């Protein structure tokens, strides 16, 4: 990204973006835990996860990540289309 920033400002920007990515990642992680917990854990006769629950969690995480990945691609395509449209002279 060239926005006419000095080297120091560029470093400042990178640091902030890293923090943002970390935050976003933590948010995705929390959503994943909550969703998979609510979807998979239903047996409270024991305090450790059953084999069935563990398997469900595994499939849930795998599927959610595939889904997030797929929607990221659609989102990126959409953003590209939008920015091309914005640059086109009419």
């Amino acid at each position, binding site marked *: 990204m060239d926005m006419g*920033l000095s080297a120091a400002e560029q470093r400042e920007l990178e640091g902030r973006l890293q923090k*943002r990515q970390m935050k976003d990642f933590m948010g995705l992680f929390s*959503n994943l835990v909550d969703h*998979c917990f609510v*979807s998979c854990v239903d047996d409270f006769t024991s305090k450790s996860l059953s084999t069935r629950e563990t398997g469900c969690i595994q499939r849930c995480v795998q599927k959610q990540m*595939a*889904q997030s990945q*797929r929607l990221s691609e*659609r*989102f990126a395509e959409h953003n590209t289309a939008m920015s091309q449209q914005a640059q086109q002279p009419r």
Partner: protein
Amino acid sequence: MSFLGFGRPQPSSAEKIAAVEQEMKLMAEMHNRLTRVCAKKCVPNDYREGDLNKGESVCLDRCAAKFFDVHLKVSELMQQEAQSRGGGGGGGFGMGG
């Protein structure tokens, strides 16, 4: 500071940095909402399979396309509404009072 500026002052570097950050935040939020909404519509949460099947994948693609359309549609409707209420920024939808 903006003696070559056209109409309004150039944004300072701090403002540019804040704008990029804000943009990333909005993107992340929209991605979260898209994922939440389309998961609900397209993927059953019993997780008997770990892979997205063909039907689910196609549903997600269409869901994303419709979600972007609804975004556009809603922003158009809100602009119309704002104008029909006699102009001004978003009047009547804010905190009221």
